[in-house]
């Protein structure tokens, strides 16, 4: 595991009208890390994700990915640079089949021109073949291969979450942002998900930044975490240390 900085967020901030949703937040994530982002509801975690993925343009600050300034770039450009995400409110292509959801994710990886698809030139078959194989492999990782032909909207909630991760992975990112991946899962399913996340990190050589309210998951797999509170950074550091920080306990964990 090389300890190179992959994502560097510098004093980033954004306002909505009068509301300062994120203010002056900085964090650094190293290559290969499993990093957690926690904080009370409404503290700006999702908003931070939205800025890093280009959905919102920060009103102040910058962020660097792989040494490149991506502040203010479009979601498409940012994804192509290697950042993929899932959404807090699941956003699947509901009327497409499970496998097609993943194949759309592979769209930029296995390319052929529209012209080649119209004429059904050899490259079409070649790339489609590879897409099919890769998509099946990814579905296999998430135990979704049996449902590959059903519509995404007919999957139960938990499987939809998994499919969303599979789709994000399909874009071949270096950094994966997961927004509350365990929400709506029972403890057993969460356990399983933790395995999967570890598996992804190890086998896909991935850096993962995740938001989660399930402390079992956070303390179970995150090496480092940051805590947001009212849009500002409350604490950062090794997971066990941060979780014992009295301020964090008071603001977030309770008891």
């Amino acid at each position, binding site marked *: 595991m090389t300890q190179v900085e992959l994502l560097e967020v510098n004093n980033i901030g954004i306002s909505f009208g009068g509301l300062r949703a994120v203010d002056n937040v900085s964090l650094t994530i190293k290559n290969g890390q499993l990093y957690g982002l926690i904080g009370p509801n*409404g503290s700006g975690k999702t908003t931070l994700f939205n800025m890093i993925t280009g959905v919102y343009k920060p009103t102040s600050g910058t962020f660097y990915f792989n040494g490149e300034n991506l502040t203010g770039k479009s979601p498409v450009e940012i994804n192509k640079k290697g950042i993929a995400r899932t959404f807090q409110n699941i956003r699947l292509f509901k009327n497409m089949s499970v496998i097609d959801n993943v194949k759309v994710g592979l769209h930029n990886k296995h390319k052929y021109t529209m012209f080649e698809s119209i004429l059904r030139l050899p490259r079409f078959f070649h790339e489609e073949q590879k897409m099919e194989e890769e998509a099946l492999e990814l579905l296999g990782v998430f135990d979704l291969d049996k449902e590959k032909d059903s519509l995404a909207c007919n999957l139960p909630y938990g499987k939809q979450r998994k499919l969303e991760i599979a789709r994000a992975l399909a874009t071949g990112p270096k950094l994966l942002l997961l927004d509350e991946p365990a929400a709506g899962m029972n403890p057993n399913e969460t356990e399983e998900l933790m395995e999967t996340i570890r598996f992804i990190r190890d086998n896909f050589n991935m850096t993962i930044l995740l938001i989660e309210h399930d402390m079992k998951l956070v303390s179970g797999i995150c090496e480092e975490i940051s805590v947001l509170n009212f849009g500002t950074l409350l604490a950062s550091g090794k997971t066990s240390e941060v979780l014992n920080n009295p301020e964090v306990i008071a*603001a977030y964990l309770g008891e």
Partner: protein
Amino acid sequence: MAMLTINDLHVYYGVIQAIKGISFEVNEGEVIALIGANGAGKTTILHTITGLIAARSGSIIFQGQKLTKTPAHRIVKMGIAHVPEGRRIFSHLTVYENLQLGAYTRGDKAEIEASLETVYRRFPRLKERKNQVAGTLSGGEQQMLAIGRALMSRPKLILMDEPSMGLSPILVSEIFDIIKSISEGGTTVLLVEQNAKKALTIADRAYVLETGKIVLSGNAQDLINDESVKKAYLGE
């Protein structure tokens, strides 16, 4: 006499059968937990009770009245409120307007005002944000709004679909406290939860669902100690 009786309920989505003959009852004043894995059919049951989905067969009887024959909008008036999965707040309306809509079936302005104050007391964050457009609230804030909105109808029975989903640990505890206090206030609660442990702690009785069927039921305390439940749902 049970408050809510469900008898041999069958529900379909097109050709897919989601509920395969379920019967259970909820007594007045109880907190009943429904637990089960993803896709077991918990949400479907709640939707069928409040009339968002029609049952293929079977009956749902609330205080002697057949709900399967009642249009959805009347069911609220009969005293059932529903905190739906995914919150489904009105995201273009303000927090205040959402709460007012919760009291849609009620007439007395002063009483509504009183309920509003109660809700604001329970969720001070909502009071702070009362003029914010609900769609821009954070996930947790939206969940509070959804519960608050349901309480605005002053229900006899409240159905909650995974109210703790997406909430910070502090709030999860808080929500369960709220559920407890709602129950203590005399409202019957039918609770669907993934956080089975917490749910069973506050519930009186519980039913365990697997692929559209009830596979286990009983006293919440007993279930918490049941080996198979422990293994399957409590992650121990």
